[in-house]
């Protein structure tokens, strides 16, 4: 348990070594300064296409989006598309969304339920297990040409704790080993009982790594998001795991150590108290006591609502954000109430564009006051029953993605950073210890780019 901590660098919440909250040992990732062309050159993008993306496990979606056999969704990634489909035996398979006949996209729907997939070009049909079902006018084909019964090209597909991943070349290490996180880390949140209640795909004028880099540190909080100082500590506990994975624990419901007044309760803190069912008007403690009070209230509420999985969580997890990075392009803000999955998806052609794909997952609970944390920016009035899977909202570059105050500030900033890293006057990133997760990510990326992995 880690209800109390002292905000000093290096940040350590003091959890025992066997806890999933424990501070991980430091890793020496060196002091290399990488040339900034990685953020804009087509040559580097091509290296990523060849050496990175086919070799890694990519987060494709969540299992609750495809509960029944025949349920599918299409996962778009750069120049590729994949059909991810639930099988009759409840397993999940994934295929390139391309017809082996003439290369048309087989599935034009973005999600749905199917007994088979028929190509809209010449009507070739495939079972949901990818096998060839029917060639239109097959007697007009030389049998030798189609003797191998061409089906959909399958890619490796696996899931952990309700989250589905694919691997294009099929040669990545087993999923759990690849992810590099301790046993049970993802599973404890029971994402397989959560539903996507909000999904936004916004296009940002920046390289995908500019996105990863920004979201992998809280060093920028006092400058880009000064309003968070009343409710968030910007010294995070940084933890580095194998294979590029990392985590930062961001203490929430506290004032930043940079704020002099640690006595009076901030309005944002008061809001979080109300979310947990506490009345700030009758609260007699100081600002530093809010986090513990909220943890206690959430623990009691969980018992009242019969939410047994709260037994998995430390007190800290009930308030703090466990921002969990999965190499290469995912960060998940993990909370007992819900998980915010962000994916940094490269544009098909332009290295200076990415899609910021964000899904808010929520576990429906029969209590009107039970909600995901406010920073996730869930719009007022969102249907959180899990009965209806909302369509993704597409936001083109240049428009505000309406992701909430904090994330919209990032959306404004990153295209400007992208312009800066192109300058002849810029020599490459200089990472401090508060940015150790960014370096950890970039060092792992380098291993793929140079062929070491």
């Amino acid at each position, binding site marked *: 348990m880690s209800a109390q901590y002292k905000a000093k660098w290096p940040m350590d919440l003091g959890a025992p070594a066997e806890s999933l909250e424990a501070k991980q040992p430091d890793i020496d990732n060196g002091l290399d300064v990488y040339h900034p062309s990685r953020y804009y050159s087509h040559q580097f993008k091509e290296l990523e296409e060849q050496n990175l993306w086919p070799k890694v496990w990519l987060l494709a979606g969540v299992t609750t989006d495809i509960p029944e056999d025949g349920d599918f969704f299409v996962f778009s990634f750069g120049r590729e598309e994949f059909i991810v489909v639930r099988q009759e035996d409840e397993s999940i398979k994934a295929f390139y969304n391309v017809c082996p006949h003439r290369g048309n996209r087989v599935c034009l*729907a973005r999600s749905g*339920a199917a*007994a088979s997939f028929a190509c809209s070009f010449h009507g070739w049909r495939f079972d949901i297990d990818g096998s060839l079902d029917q060639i239109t006018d097959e007697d007009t084909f030389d049998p030798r040409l189609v003797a191998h019964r061409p089906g959909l090209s399958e890619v490796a597909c696996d899931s952990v704790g309700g989250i589905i991943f694919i691997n294009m070349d099929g040669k990545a290490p087993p999923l759990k080993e690849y992810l590099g996180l301790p046993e049970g880390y993802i599973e404890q949140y029971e994402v397989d009982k959560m539903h996507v209640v909000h999904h936004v795909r916004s296009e940002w004028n920046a390289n995908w790594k500019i996105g990863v880099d920004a979201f992998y540190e809280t060093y920028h909080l006092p400058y880009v998001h000064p309003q968070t100082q009343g409710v968030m500590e910007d010294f995070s506990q940084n933890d580095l795991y194998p294979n590029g994975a990392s985590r930062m624990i961001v203490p929430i419901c506290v004032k930043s150590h940079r704020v002099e007044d640690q006595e009076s309760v901030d309005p944002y803190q008061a809001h979080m108290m109300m979310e947990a069912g506490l009345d700030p008007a009758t609260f007699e403690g100081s600002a530093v006591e809010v986090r513990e009070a909220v943890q206690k209230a959430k623990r009691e509420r969980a018992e009242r609502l019969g939410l047994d999985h709260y037994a998995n969580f430390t007190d800290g997890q009930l308030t703090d954000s466990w921002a969990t990075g999965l190499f290469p392009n995912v960060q998940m803000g993990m909370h007992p109430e819900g998980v915010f999955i962000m994916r940094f998806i490269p544009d098909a052609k332009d290295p200076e564009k990415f899609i910021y794909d964000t899904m808010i997952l929520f576990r429906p609970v029969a209590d009107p006051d039970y909600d995901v944390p406010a920073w996730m920016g869930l719009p007022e009035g969102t249907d959180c029953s899990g009965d209806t899977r909302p369509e993704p909202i597409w936001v083109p570059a240049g428009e505000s993605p309406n992701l909430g105050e904090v994330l919209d500030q990032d959306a404004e900033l990153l295209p400007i950073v992208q312009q800066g890293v192109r300058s002849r006057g810029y020599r490459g990133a200089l990472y401090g210890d508060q940015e150790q997760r960014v370096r950890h990510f970039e060092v792992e990326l380098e291993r793929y780019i140079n062929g070491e992995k």
Partner: protein
Amino acid sequence: MAKAFVIEADAVEVGKTRPVTVEGRKLLVCHSKTGIYVIENRCSHQMARLTGGKLRGHKIFCPLHSAPFDMRDGAALGPPADKPICVFQTTIEDGKVFAEIPDTA
């Protein structure tokens, strides 16, 4: 507009569809977990029959290319369809399914 008998309600199992012709119109009776719907049996995308399309709540997916439609109002809910299909106001009385069929098709 005329209220027409379509089918016995128990003739279509939950999760199944059944094509019927009523007053010369090819209809599809769809029994999903959320109720019984009577819709036009033709996809607005490539004119395929919707018979056998998977049902999920108030949605039906065309069996050919998975075009999704809302069986309550006929709206096309996403690609590859961009036009609605006809749906018919449906009532169930004494175990019988009735639909309001317009006089002119």
